[in-house]
């Protein structure tokens, strides 16, 4: 592969990776944050304790996290087909990526929310806050700097998962590295992909780290 072709290919596959990771990150946060909130509010010392429900939720989340992504990817093929009409391609890959990342992010979000001082919840309740107001005006805003970092960790994990999307024809950087760099012995492609991935991850971590610091309110 000459340099121009390599760069063009790299850009195309990077676009696919960003598409898969970007969309699944949005869905992951939309589904995982409520799940994280639910994990913490239903806990024994939570806002509305439901210990049995909490145990069940915790169990399901742990099941989701204990399956290796490659297996989850294959297991979910029928589900993916039912949901998006096909199990092949990068759009289809978004389904297993999201399913894998939701429990992961939910646990991270739960930890972030747990770090909010219980006294702040007391203060809000003493002023007549409803449970929903405690969640939306205290827990999430106060945990935001930490939640932002949790999103960064999730994105980086999703980039790593997305390397396996090639299995279902999802394409992306990982797929490029496997098919050209490994199977066709094109070391240049492998090196270029690796360098690109390193820069991508560093960039994401730096961006979200900066964002988190900005949100830390003059600490």
């Amino acid at each position, binding site marked *: 592969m000459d340099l121009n072709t390599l760069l063009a290919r790299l850009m195309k596959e990077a676009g696919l990776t960003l598409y898969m990771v970007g969309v699944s990150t949005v869905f992951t946060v939309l589904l995982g944050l409520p799940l994280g909130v639910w994990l913490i509010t239903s806990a024994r010392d939570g806002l509305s304790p439901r210990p049995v429900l909490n145990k069940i939720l915790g169990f399901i989340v742990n099941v989701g996290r204990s399956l290796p992504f490659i297996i989850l990817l294959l297991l979910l093929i029928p589900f993916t087909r039912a949901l998006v009409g096909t199990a092949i391609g990068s759009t289809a890959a978004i389904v297993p990526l999201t399913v894998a990342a939701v429990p992961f992010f939910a646990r991270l979000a739960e930890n972030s929310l747990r770090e909010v001082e219980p006294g702040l919840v*007391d203060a809000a309740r*003493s002023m*007549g806050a*409803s449970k929903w107001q405690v969640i939306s005006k205290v827990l999430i805003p106060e945990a935001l700097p930490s939640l932002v970092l949790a999103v960064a960790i999730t994105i980086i994990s999703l980039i790593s998962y997305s390397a396996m999307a090639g299995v279902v024809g999802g394409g992306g950087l990982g797929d490029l590295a496997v098919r050209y760099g490994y199977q066709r012995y094109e070391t240049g492609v492998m090196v270029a992909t690796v360098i690109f991935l390193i820069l991508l991850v560093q960039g994401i971590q730096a961006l979200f780290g900066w964002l988190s610091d900005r949100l830390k309110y003059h600490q």
Partner: protein
Amino acid sequence: MIRTEHLQKSFGQQNGQDLHALRDVSLRVGKGQIFGVLGESGAGKSTLIRCINLLERPDSGEVWVDGQELTGLPEAELRQARRQMGMIFQHFNLLNSRNVSENIAFGLELAGVDPDARRKRVEELLDLVHLSDKAKAYPRQLSGGQKQRVGIARALATHPKLLLSDEATSALDPQTTLGVLDLLKDLNRQLGLTILLITHQMDVVRRICDHAAVMREGRVVEQGPINELILNPDGVLAQAIFPPSEPIPAEAGWHSATLTFLGDSAREPLLAELVRSFALDVNILGGSIQPVAGNRVGRLQVQMKGPRLTEALQWMRERGIQVELH
């Protein structure tokens, strides 16, 4: 203003013993009072104050605030009732994600007050707690005393009639503590605010409270107007203010006594008059005068001798002096 009836709260067992946080607590706090609940840590006073606005639910008993029984209220009405009670905390519990103005506006926002009215009220409150220049500062940029002032302003935003103070000065240095206590006293006078505070600091009770209760192991062991509590020589509060000293044995022919006097009688030249009117010999063995709740309370250990001693004792009691003969 506050009436609790037989509050019970248990937090399970430890070492086979019931961990009782509250045992049969019946408290009476009148309108306009500054009522201090004094007790060591673990005495249950924190649980008690959290039961007043039901942050903690008692296992049994009733909580009446301003004529309303709270434990039976549905959630929505309870939230409404809580807006009639402000609360301040030992660690201030300000929201780090909001600046001073936004923190103060928080309760108004929760209550659905519109932004214009909110802004106006916040300005009044900033003025009230002397923090107008810190409106845009974040909690982390404030000192402890300033944080507590924000806490007080925030608690008062919805015009509550009652302020609950959970060890509000315990994390502050002595100088700042005095500032915050003076502010509470002013608010009590200016706004007629009833204040229920819990503390382990005797000085807090002595400086601003007019009524007090003492808690031990989940029970209220005494409560009432401070002036009365102090005159009870066996009382916990009286002994905390005047730690019992070694009784000094009277010499032969002398009668030893402890005299406790309050308010005006602490200023009068009492002993001089005793000596003059009853030809009594009085010998002072020890004593101190302590400021309590804006009053001066004196306690003297004396020994006395003279033929008209009984008459003299009668004369002192008529003047409201507590006389305890040993």
